């Protein structure tokens, strides 16, 4: 894997995606133990997963547009939560 810094976000923007990242992980792990027996909570979970996933994707779309980060096919962007740096990660050829 090759990694190249392609941008930077603000701490506020970083906090936003970090919270969504944490929430998405939390919802995924909650989904492993919550069953449809608990109908009300289960329904809330499913709705929340959908909403969080959408917000998550929106953040990347918005930021990519705002900062015009370099991209290539098969590449991923990564964020370093400590430094707010954005990296383009590409598989080694």
């Amino acid at each position, binding site marked *: 894997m090759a990694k190249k810094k392609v941008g930077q976000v603000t701490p506020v923007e970083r906090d936003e*995606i*970090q*919270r969504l*990242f*944490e*929430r998405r*992980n*939390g*919802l*995924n*792990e*909650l989904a*492993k*133990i*919550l069953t449809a027996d608990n109908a009300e*909570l289960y329904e*809330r*979970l499913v709705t929340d997963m959908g909403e969080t996933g959408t917000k998550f*994707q929106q953040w*990347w779309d918005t930021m990519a547009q705002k900062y015009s980060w370099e*991209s290539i096919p*098969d*590449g*991923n*962007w*990564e*964020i*370093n*939560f*400590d430094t707010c740096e954005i*990296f383009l*990660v590409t598989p080694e050829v």
Partner: protein
Amino acid sequence: MNEDNKPFKENDPGWQGGVAKNITFIVTKDCQLACKYCYLVGKNEKERMSWETAKAAIDYILGHEADFPEASVVWDFIGGEPFLEIELIDKICDYLKTEMFRLRHHWFDSYRFSFSTNGINYHTDKVQDFIKKNHTHLSIGITIDGTRRKHDLNRIWKGDGPERGSYDDVVRNIPLWLEQFPGGGTKVTISSADIPYICESVLHLYSLGIHEVNINCVFEDVWSEGDDKRFEDQLMQLADAIIDGGYYQDYACSFFSEHIGKPLDPELENQNWCGAGKMLSVDAAGNFYPCTRFAAYSLREKRPIIIGNVRDGIDKNKLRPFLTLDRLTQSPRECIDCEVASGCAWCQGENYDAAATPTVYQRATAICLMHKARVRANNYYWNRLFRKLELEGEREQWEKNKPESNDVIC
């Protein structure tokens, strides 16, 4: 594309160092081992936390959200050996996740489950199932003290009969642990008898693939005359080995830090070192403590400091001394005037246990000579390393990518 079919992948977010609330469940006071340096003087097989107590603690804590404003939480599980109670822990974690979500608690967006284990049960099905279920929220440290002879010197199995070390029972689980938690660090404790094995032990841990070794001397008054010199010699050997072997590029050892060994400003650097009081511990009886070190099983000389319980809640008056503690008020003159004060740590629980009166305001200084020896070796390490990097033209590059270690002391 990554596994989420997204054209991007995040780094591990790391964790909210220093700003998270640390809440510890003392799930058992039992352990398979009887480590000679263990500060838990009152371990036993009887005091196991019941589900009812754990649930009452969770209900109290999550039900008083305003009293816990920290943005993040670390739910910590200790013993004894916490994984002896994996079934209870699993139930606790499931309940925590469900309740944080149900209550729309702000911690649902920022929590971790943390464990410090002796590693013996790490491979068992129950522990592995738990890890799979909670992987993105786990922080697990396995304690391995170094080489077989260093580890087995202290970390021996409990029971009568000939002494039996636990090295083989732990080391077999290290590869699995590092596969699951590649950044996993270990915590090494040094007391008098361990000093001759420090260098070989750190290098051994590196050879096992552990890139972060958090190591510290015990705070108790266990030191003999000459230990500081022997300690310094070991650290000098370790410094040479790390530099000559190039380990400094990818490995960290908390003994060596650029920030230690300087005088401290009496006004600007007056904060307390220890986090006791900002943390919260709960034991099998449902009592709350400012830190586990204030529970009865941790104390040699003093009575426990109980700051409340799961039924009546927290007595905030009992927290006031902890939350107003500063460095100067608790330090003797020699520490205030010390020219190498930075990085000299203390444990509030040991301070309390060793104090002349039942107070947390008297700093124990048993570690003084060992800290000074560490500072001397540390100075040597950085002087040698920087000179080498400069001669090789690598200083700038190294500064950008240097490995970080946490000064984890308890």
